[in-house]
């Protein structure tokens, strides 16, 4: 009895320390151990339960191993033949039944959670509907309730359920926002409107305003590593301003030479406001996005190799897309230095001011 109490006394601080370590691990906008929304929280809860059970198992095995290794090592000159034990039914039953009990403890909340997290909000009028389409190597977001196409940056209102329908435009990708929700694969399939094929559904919610990092989690080609996106949670009023601003017309560059280069080269694949085509990322508010291409972080205080001002990043991207994202379909367009400058400058000023 005394012995068991001791074991408990030693294990408790270990668990406490482990939990502390886990919950302090990683960036709040990226780590699964630092969940920022109810879905990731529920998944983290299950992870904690599983880790606790597993630590018990590991500690028991380590303890027996250590004891056996130390206690029963062969001393020099020891030639005795140990008793040849065949087995022990009582022990066999113990180490069959106890794991089964542990599995029930883990299995019941698992099944519960599987069904809970598979709840379908795609028909819920209160939820924000988002159709996610993945491409090599960028993310397309379509808001059917607002008829808005955007890319790389998923703007959502805080406190609302976000109902995601995910498909792929080419190869498999996986849609993952570690601090908000676990991932779901995007399978290639028929158009979402048909509701058939392999479209996947998930939901998540961000109670707190902020920016959360998203990642592609399925090998999808050379730039799989660089297929990042951002989730930007803003209050509802800001979100409404954002959706409204997406509809307002956008002026093209005033300089006719730049305008010409832009319309001829960029708008044959991209859209700005109501102009151009929606084959590749919509550029309507590219100047207010946090990144260019998902990975070149826009900031005035550049610290790392992948950071720069919006203008610098746009220029770097347009000048040689392959150098930034190997394998991207964005071609290196034949443009003069002035044209690149002008286009980058124009794009960096395409801002929507929706956060008040």
């Amino acid at each position: 009895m005394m012995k068991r109490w001791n074991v408990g006394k030693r294990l408790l601080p270990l668990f406490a320390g482990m939990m502390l370590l886990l919950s302090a691990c990683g960036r709040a906008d990226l780590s699964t151990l630092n969940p920022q929304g109810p879905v990731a929280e529920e998944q983290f809860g299950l992870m904690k339960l599983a880790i606790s059970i597993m630590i018990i198992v590991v500690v028991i095995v380590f303890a027996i191993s250590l004891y056996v290794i130390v206690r029963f090592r062969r001393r020099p000159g020891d030639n005795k033949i140990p008793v040849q034990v065949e087995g022990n039914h009582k022990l066999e039953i113990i180490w069959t039944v106890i794991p089964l009990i542990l599995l029930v403890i883990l299995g019941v909340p698992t099944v519960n959670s599987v069904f809970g997290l598979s709840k379908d909000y795609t028909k819920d009028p209160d939820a924000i509907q988002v159709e996610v389409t993945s491409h090599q190597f960028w993310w397309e977001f379509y808001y059917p309730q607002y008829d808005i196409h955007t890319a790389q940056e998923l703007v959502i209102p805080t406190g609302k359920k976000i109902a995601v329908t995910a498909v792929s435009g080419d190869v498999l990708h996986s849609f993952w926002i570690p601090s908000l929700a676990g991932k779901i694969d995007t399978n290639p399939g028929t158009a979402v409107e048909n509701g058939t094929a392999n479209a996947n559904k998930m939901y998540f919610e961000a109670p707190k305003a902020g920016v959360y990092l998203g990642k592609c989690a399925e090998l999808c080609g050379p730039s799989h590593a660089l297929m990042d996106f951002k989730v930007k949670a803003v209050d509802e009023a800001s979100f409404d301003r954002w959706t409204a601003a997406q509809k307002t017309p956008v002026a093209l560059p005033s300089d006719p030479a730049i305008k010409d280069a832009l319309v001829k080269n960029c708008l044959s694949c991209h859209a700005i406001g109501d102009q151009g085509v929606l084959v590749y990322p919509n550029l309507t508010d590219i100047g207010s996005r946090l990144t260019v291409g998902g990975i070149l972080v826009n900031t005035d205080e550049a610290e790392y190799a992948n950071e720069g001002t919006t203008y610098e990043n746009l220029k770097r991207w347009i000048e040689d897309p392959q150098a930034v994202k190997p394998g991207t379909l964005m071609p290196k367009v034949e443009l003069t230095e002035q044209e690149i400058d002008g286009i980058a400058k124009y794009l960096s000023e395409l801002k929507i001011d929706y956060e008040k």
Partner: protein
Amino acid sequence: MAHAHAHTVKRYKGLMDWLTTVDHKKIGILYLLAGGFFFLVGGLEAIMIRIQLIKPLNDFVSAEKFNQLLTMHGTTMIFLAAMPMLFALMNAVIPLQIGARDVAFPFVNALGFWTFFAGGVLLNVSWFTGGAPDAGWTSYVPLASPTYSPEYGVDYYVIGLQIAGIGTLIGGINFLVTIINMRAPGMTFMRMPMFTWAIFITSALILFAFPALTVGLVALMFDRLFEANFFEVANGGNAVLWEHIFWIFGHPEVYILILPAFGVISEVISTFSRKRLFGYSSMVFATVLIGFLGFMVWAHHMFTTGLGPVANALFSIATMLIAVPTGIKIFNWLFTMWGGSIKFTTANLFAVGFIPTFVMGGVTGVMLAAAPADFQYHDSYFVVAHFHYVIVGGLILGIFSGLHYWWPKMFGRMLNETLGKLTFWTFFIGFHMTFLIQHFLGLMGMPRRIYTYLDGLGFNNMNLISTIGAFLMGLGTIFFILNIIVTSVSGKKAAGDAWEDGRTLEWTIPSPAPEYNFAQTPLVRGYDAFWKEKMDGHKEMTPAEPLGSIHMPSPSILPLFMSIGLFIAGLGFMYHNYYVGGGGLALTFLCMLIRSLKDDHGFHIEPDELHDKGVKA
């Protein structure tokens, strides 16, 4: 080894002996050489991967090259390193353990080796013809489809693995038949050594799992070479189908890899504890159960594919259940050591190190089985850490243990213990250093299979530590190679019962085993047959037959040429050169025809030619 004798069968010497051999012991050594070579290749690829990830935004290799490296690292390690090294141990040990003179089909055994080798070489030829496969070892479509991988890389994967897969499949069938039919008199199923049991179940898994892979590869080959549409979504194919087919093979494959390691650990721990394996019958039962459940859980690799809550719940629970028989094995090993007299040879260090390491890989497996939590772990470095704990911490430690344990029986010399212990400690510490930290990288949001990561995400230090660990593992491997060289030059000659505590039949014959294994087939009177005789005061086994002439199979060059034919055919079809392709196939069929029409009754070794008269201890 061959002595002059009065028979007409041609006996070869030198290189020709190795190219024509059908002797399971020599084929085992061939498997070890080839598997060891590919292990070094795969290890080099791993080191390059880790160098690339040593710091953020590194440019040691390009994105394209990195994807080739990670694909070939996985494919090489699983199919061309781990499996052949297991086949090496199977070949070297199983016939000896069951008291047989060879496997059931010696010719097929040689064919299995050469097809594996041809497939493995074909896969690696891709490095020099414009780029290795780059769609991951899982080769998920559409990325691996002709639309998104129009280069030849994935063709090498598809065709190389088909050829290598033939070798594995016929090897599995061979060992099933061998174990069922060729056990010595008295060796009932419940007296078989645990390693033999493990290989028996493994062979059954190979029999049922590999055809699934072959079907998948053939379908993908038709998509790639002949514009079929099995997986072409635009034309009504289905990409998720490939995932199912791959994992219906892929999950049993995990157990094909780990069960033999379980068998090795059972033998080594029992021998060096001088104790009978604790709970033998429950160990057998647990192995069978793991093999069975291994086929019921493939969709746990696909929790995020979108199978729906019912499938995810069922596969979650089924997966968790595997923990029960695995736990049974772990505790039985611990209680085999309990009360024993444990000697820490290098082989046993690897075995004892295996137990806690494998448990760590096992518990993360149960964590991954909880589908909602897996949505977070899936395709992150947590998974990378998990399967390296199971495969390196489980299988590779098991193979190292088995190699150190059976080396004297295979080569007749004792490996150097000092170098062996150096191998263990550098490899073991390097392993934990590389992979423990990767669990946390994954949980902190680092996806797997990324060729680089941005700075400032908090991944830098952990990746640096992981890379240093990888170099330590490399150092451990170098120590092992050094040990092999030192041993082959000046190693101590091994006695028949090399470890003095041998319990099973392979230790009753000289080291290395003579060509015919047993001059007289032994009579098995119980589990741990040799140990039982020793405890009863006997020095050797009771023979089950009088001394007589021994029938041996003839060597043949045909298996080598059949495999070369397949190699040529593969290359030919890949480049749509149907003359070359057809020519290669013709060579293979010609060899098969010769084999069918030519009568070859083998030869006999007469009693006066035997090295050892009677069965010795």
